[in-house]
């Protein structure tokens, strides 16, 4: 089915839903790279007007990637809940924007299973940044493993203690630094430098020992490939969370070396360990706009719509944490600070609306036209939007992945600026250890947190 809209005597025609969605997307380099972006500002707004007039019902009749060709489309369509959709079944995309902005927060959770990722993506395309923030702020998603993540008034932080060679003492030193600055309630999660099973086992064991030694109410994760995590579990390693990068098409998931079935197998294996104390949300997913194009598995669909479909994959499981790595994928997908900021807020909005515990890796690489000022702007916006968690990296400089994310200090800033606290169990632990909710001040490390206790 084609769509059309006239502006100033020119009629713009969009061949199908996929093209309409792509042309309606605020400009970003990745859509230009894929050849799907609007070619003029007028074409873009024509597409936005046509999209605004489209009944939400239409998304149940036309897929952006054929059902037969893609298991993510099948997952989305087969799990759609018609009863949950009923309250908004009469709306257009434009009407849905108005509805969301006026809605009471209590109306949103019941809607989640009635929304497809494409509906969330569509409405985000006709929203301004303030709309993305205002609606996301109303979404509440709480998950649990050894603490409670996402409660009102909280902002959690993933402590990311990466080291270029996975040196255990180096990782431990960064971990201690972060704990003293109030980080680590989302997870203590290290990206290993390689997928070497011996190194992964070493990191898993060390992080679990640090957690046990200080009795921290949090979880640890080594962000290796899901097949490596399965191998680690077979060998009896202390695996709290299973991590995997995922995307919004079958092809991009294949490029990551995963299938929906493999993710289920890994979730079942982690559940069988029963390591959670407050809950059993055992999965940790990362996503990011542009990964499908990077894998040449985008089917001509714009990158933001595919990103929303990745959230459709994530919510088929019970993740403790999901985050977009928004500025990490590179300038060919998000060229500068302006594009990264908008994408970060879109990702957070879509994830939250679909019911995910959505965090954002507020970040940029050195080949992007972005800097710390852009990240401060995105951090502040996301904190206002109620982002579930952000990253904490020593001094904002990830010495293994060679990119810049938020620092432990940035986390303290965001919590202080907006009156947020860590997860309650973790906040109580910070008090017990003599650190306090806003982190330790001064050079002396308290005896309760002595480096010698963890082999430093």
């Amino acid at each position, binding site marked *: 089915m084609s769509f059309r809209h006239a502006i100033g005597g020119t009629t713009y025609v969009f061949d199908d839903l996929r093209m309409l969605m792509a042309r309606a997307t605020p400009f970003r*380099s990745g859509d*230009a*790279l894929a050849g799907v972006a609007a070619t003029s500002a007028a074409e873009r707004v024509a597409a936005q007007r046509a999209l605004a007039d489209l009944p939400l019902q239409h998304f149940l009749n036309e897929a952006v990637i054929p059902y037969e060709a893609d298991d993510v489309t099948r997952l989305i369509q087969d799990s759609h809940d018609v009863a949950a959709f009923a309250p908004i079944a009469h709306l257009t995309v434009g009407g849905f924007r108005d509805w969301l902005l006026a809605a009471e927060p209590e109306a949103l959770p019941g809607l989640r299973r009635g929304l497809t990722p494409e509906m969330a993506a569509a409405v985000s395309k006709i929203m301004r940044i303030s709309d993305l923030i205002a609606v996301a702020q109303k979404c509440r998603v709480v998950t649990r493993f050894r603490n409670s993540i996402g409660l009102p008034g909280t902002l959690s932080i993933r402590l990311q203690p*990466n*080291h*270029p*060679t996975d*040196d255990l*003492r*180096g*990782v*431990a*030193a*960064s971990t*201690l*630094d972060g704990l*003293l*600055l109030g980080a680590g309630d989302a997870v203590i999660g290290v990206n290993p*430098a*390689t*997928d*070497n*099973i*011996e190194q992964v086992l070493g990191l898993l064991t060390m992080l679990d020992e640090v957690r046990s030694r200080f009795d921290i109410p949090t979880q640890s994760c080594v962000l290796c*490939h899901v*097949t*490596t995590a399965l191998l680690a579990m077979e060998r009896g390693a202390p695996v709290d969370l299973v991590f995997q990068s995922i995307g919004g098409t079958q092809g991009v998931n*294949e*490029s990551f*070396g995963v299938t929906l079935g493999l993710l289920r197998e890994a979730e079942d294996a982690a559940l069988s360990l029963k390591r959670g104390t407050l809950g059993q949300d055992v999965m940790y997913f990362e996503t990011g706009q542009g990964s499908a194009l990077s*894998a040449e598995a985008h089917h001509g669909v714009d990158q933001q719509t595919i990103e929303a479909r990745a959230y459709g994959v994530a919510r088929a499981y019970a993740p403790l944490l999901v985050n977009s790595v928004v500025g990490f994928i590179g*300038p*060919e997908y998000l060229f500068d600070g302006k594009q990264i900021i908008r994408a970060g807020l879109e990702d957070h909005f879509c994830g939250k609306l679909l019911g995910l515990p959505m965090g954002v890796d507020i970040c940029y*690489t*050195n*080949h992007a036209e972005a*800097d*710390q000022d852009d990240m401060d702007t995105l951090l502040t916006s996301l904190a206002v939007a109620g982002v579930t968690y952000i990253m904490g*990296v*020593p*001094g*904002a*400089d*990830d*010495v293994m992945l*060679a990119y*810049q994310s938020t620092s432990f*200090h940035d986390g303290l*800033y965001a919590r202080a600026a907006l009156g947020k606290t860590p997860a309650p169990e973790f906040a109580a632990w910070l008090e017990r250890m003599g650190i306090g909710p*806003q*982190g*330790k*001040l*001064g*050079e*002396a*490390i308290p005896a309760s947190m002595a*480096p*010698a206790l963890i082999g*430093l």
Partner: protein
Amino acid sequence: MSITRWSDLRRFTQARVGIGRTGNAVPTAAHLDFQEAHAAARDAVWSVLDAEALRAELGPVPVLHSEATERKTYLLRPDLGRRLREADRASLPRTGGTVIVIADGLCASGVQSQSVAMVRALDADWPVVIVQQARVAIGDDIGEAMGAEAVVVLIGERPGLSAQDSMGIYLTWQPRRGRTDAERNCISNIRPGGISTADAAAKVHWLLRGARALGATGVALKDDMTSAPLLE
């Protein structure tokens, strides 16, 4: 002797630990250290590979070019950086065996300073080619054109604040256009202070033996080499 001061954590890692605090921000000196490092990294992205300097060390090896004509196009069009220029494709000899590709990637200075040492550490009689404005997957085009059994791509890694000289190695069995990243094995952070060229070379040989036995690289080839490899 056990440590008690926060800044002493710095002896264990090059990460920016124990940098102090003013309010909820980093102190001025640490803030400006960061800005200076970011400036160096930005400049490293735009560094240019000196192929003649490499040929002076390695001999008269072919110098090739991707379809990305200059740096900005390279940054915005990774698809062009993955493809070998057609004329270069036709010029390559069919050598078979394993081929080493030296590619500038996102930081020419990283591969400039380390690729020669890496080729020597590999200590093998494999043909070498140099390629400009190149992404990892260009090894598939080159390997296919040369009829290679495997390709070993030495490539400059995206510069970080602490390292503007890091090199990665990507290993692909039976390279041909269309291979995905899940079909490769990667060794990253090869640089002073990271993984040494000797350790990286041992791992390349170990992975190649595994790839030959398995008939594949990538996620199917698990990197379970023990941390102290026994060389053959």
